[in-house]
């Protein structure tokens, strides 16, 4: 079944994959922001008032999903400004660089890498401080975007060994404890590693040459039985 099913994978770059279910779920995550101008008749939607005519006042704090923030974010029109979520800020980055393995990325994420990559879209060029930051960034100083991105990479690299080892050593075990703290991206990777190991072990024990009933047929039989019982 899974061989003939080709889901669209997550984009992981600056652009998401349009048809990737993972990316759609990822872009639902909330982002802290601030309204830079009044937004008429939107208070109900953003949960800040009852009447449909009320407007969101300028400067009010908002929690908006990533897709909306991306749409409204414009360097020239100043509708909203976006802040970094807590886990991408300096304090957490220090934690990550100390030991990335102890962090529960599933609780923090669960799309830590993808969401973080998307956040790089929000560098605000008209803001002179950030402009300065970007200039420095091209010069290679460890300012926000660079350190941010080094941080993903470091996190990913530091956790790579653990994922590889656990996915290839745990044979026929309950892996739910192992994957509980992994980000969605890491989980996919873990599954791939497991599949490689399991396929090899199957072949070694000579199970690959046996023909078994498709899982579809087996499930169908069960359902039939249940219907008869009912």
């Amino acid at each position, binding site marked *: 079944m899974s061989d003939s099913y080709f889901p669209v994978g997550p984009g992981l770059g600056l652009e998401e994959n349009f048809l990737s279910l993972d990316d759609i779920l990822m872009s639902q995550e909330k982002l802290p922001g601030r309204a830079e101008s009044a937004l008429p008749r939107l208070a109900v939607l953003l949960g800040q008032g009852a009447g449909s005519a009320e407007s969101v006042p300028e400067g009010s704090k908002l929690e908006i999903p990533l897709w909306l923030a991306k749409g409204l974010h414009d360097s020239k029109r100043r509708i909203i400004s976006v802040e970094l979520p807590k886990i991408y800020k300096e304090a957490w980055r220090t934690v990550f660089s100390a030991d990335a393995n102890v962090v529960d990325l599933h609780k923090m994420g669960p799309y830590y890498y993808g969401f973080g990559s998307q956040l790089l879209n929000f560098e605000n060029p008209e803001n002179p401080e950030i*402009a300065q930051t970007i200039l420095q*960034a091209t010069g290679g100083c460890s300012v926000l975007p660079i350190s941010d991105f080094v941080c993903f990479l470091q996190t990913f690299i530091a956790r790579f*060994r653990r994922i590889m080892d656990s996915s290839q050593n745990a044979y026929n075990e309950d892996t739910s404890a192992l994957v509980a703290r992994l980000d969605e991206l890491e989980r996919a*990777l873990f599954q791939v*590693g497991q599949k490689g190991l399991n396929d*090899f072990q199957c072949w*070694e024990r000579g199970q690959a040459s046996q023909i078994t009933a498709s899982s579809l047929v087996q499930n169908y039989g069960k359902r039939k039985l249940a219907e008869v019982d009912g």
Partner: protein
Amino acid sequence: GDLGPFNPGLPVEVPVWLAINLKQRQKCRLIPPEWMDVGKLEEIRDQERKEATFTPMPSPYYMELTKLLLNYASDNIPRADEIRTLVKDTWDTRMAKLRLSADSFVRQQEAHAKLDNLTLMEINTTGTFLTQALDHMYKLRTNLQPGESSHSQDF
């Protein structure tokens, strides 16, 4: 290619699939390859443990051949159990080495590597995992570059 002629009692070279098939029909006796020998395999295993890189294997399909021959013709192979253990040890050593080198490869953020003496079975077992991990890493690493160029055009 052409096979045979087949004469009773005389050695002849055939593909493994045919050898296994004839063996199952009890029409032949298999001769183990030269390297499938306890002394030689011990040497290979010790060499593998000593070296930091992968050492050349006696056959590019050593794992596959061992498995097929031991499964279907273990009565033709002297000390089959010891051979099984030795080959398994060699495999485990090589896989541990592969993991170690993959880890340092990722840590140093290299973009290419040379793995001359890995066999196909070894490459296949970890191949998808490794290429996917490196693909993720590449994307995370190049995330910033298009962003930088588009921002600098805004000024």
